């Protein structure tokens, strides 16, 4: 018995005995039994089962309703699931029970190429990227790059079809350890690094990139709806884009 008393968490050091009596009188014992049963149950319990377990004469339905009301404002609610009763984490606290797990991913070759073209040739439209790459760019590639947070929609080109223009973000600079976009190596440096070898055709050039946030003369601002339209799965994308953009 002493062991049992020890087990009980000390409610409040002062006058706990007298206290306990008062409160237990105020709250019917069946609510204690009910909450213990529902807490420990490994599956939702129906009223018949609860009635069977509780002492005779308990109005199970009334007790359930009282308990439900008591727990309604709490972090754990008493809910009815398919006619049975169970404690569940309050709906608005679902976020507490999810944990972000970082999943390392590598960019595909196509995505790397597209990213590089956006970096060097920004502001650049999808059609222009395709022109440079010589192959069409799948929507998925652009979506992945948007997900990385390394590219961003800059505006729209003042041209027929008003295509969206892409540029790099600050997160891009941060990830690749660049102080500014002009730190991207130019033609001579690429050659020096052995990345561009052999005879290059005359007139071959590598642009001097600029990620100036101000729109160019041939660009116009995005409209409010543009962000939603252009992107892939909305919820996830916005979240991860937000993470990337958070750096700015």
């Amino acid at each position: 018995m002493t062991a049992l008393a020890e087990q009980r968490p000390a409610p409040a050091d002062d006058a706990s005995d007298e206290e306990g009596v008062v409160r237990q009188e105020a709250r019917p014992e069946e609510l204690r039994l009910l909450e213990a049963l529902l807490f420990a149950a490994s599956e939702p319990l129906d009223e018949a089962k609860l009635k069977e377990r509780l002492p005779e004469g308990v109005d199970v339905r009334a007790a359930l309703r009282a308990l439900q009301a008591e727990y309604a404002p709490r972090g754990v609610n008493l809910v009815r699931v398919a006619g049975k009763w169970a404690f569940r984490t309050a709906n608005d606290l679902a976020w507490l029970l999810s944990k972000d797990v970082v999943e390392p991913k590598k960019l595909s070759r196509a995505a790397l190429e597209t990213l590089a073209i956006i970096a060097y040739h920004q502001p650049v439209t999808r059609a222009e990227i395709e022109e440079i790459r010589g192959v069409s760019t799948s929507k998925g590639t652009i979506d992945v790059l948007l997900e990385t947070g390394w590219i961003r929609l800059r505006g729209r080109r003042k041209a027929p079809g008003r295509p969206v223009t892409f540029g790099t973000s600050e997160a891009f600079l941060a990830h690749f350890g660049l102080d500014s976009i002009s730190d991207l190596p130019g033609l001579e440096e690429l050659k020096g690094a052995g990345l561009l070898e052999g005879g290059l055709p005359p007139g071959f050039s590598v642009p001097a990139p600029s990620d100036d946030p101000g729109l160019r003369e041939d660009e116009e601002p995005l409209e409010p709806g543009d962000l939603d339209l252009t992107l892939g799965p909305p919820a996830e994308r916005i979240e991860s884009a937000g993470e990337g953009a958070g750096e700015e």
Partner: protein
Amino acid sequence: MTAEDQPFEAQQAAVPADEPALIVDVEGFEGPLDLLLTLARQQKVDLTKISILALADQYLAFIEAARKLHLELAADYLVMAAWLAYLKSRLLIPTTGESEGPSAADMATALAFRLRRLEAIRAAAEALTARPQLGRDFFARGMPEPVTAVKRPEWSATLYDLLSAYASQRRKALARVRFAPRTVWSLAEARAVLERLVGSAQDWSRLDEFLIAYVVEPSMRATVFASSFAATLEMVREGHIEVHQDSAFAPIYVRKRVASDAPTGDGHAPMTAANDQ
């Protein structure tokens, strides 16, 4: 012989308190120390005041009885019996001067200590098992809600990856472009298309919308627009169509020229390209 897993009941049945050492069931004991403790309990005194001498006698009597019944005794019971017989003799014969090793009294004390310690740990084991236990007396949540992991991709690429992708891509594309024939929309082609398209449009329509089908290929875009615009101007000059644009870079609208020279019905006079010419 040590019979560790023997139920406790067997031991209790073995030695009724009133008939010590007469019923011999060595199977019930967990070793000589357990037997000694059981015998000691029969002295019904505090273990601190126990008579080791009396205890040794009882133990030896128990072993003697077991032997008479031809029970097989584990070696450790016999070792204990020999040790107790030695202790008994040392206790009975007064010590003469300095002797080697611990004194008989120390040995007796040590034995009493071990008995007390065994008894105490048994009491502790009982107290422990008397506690409320998880899953028997008190319970954890029956339906825990596990934390779900939300995968968040973390992209990685090195600057080297990026640059080498760019360099090799540019080289590849260049090699291809050099041999590709230049794609051009001739003025004649543009005019033929426009005549067909505008011919059906009575109202203002956007030029670029007319041409959407022809600019799917990115490389064609510039030439399509350039040739079409030139063709438009030519057709305006010839009086076949009208064209207007609200401001620079605004969409260009075209429509078939109405046969009469009446002003346009939509209230505002469009700036016509024809006037500009």
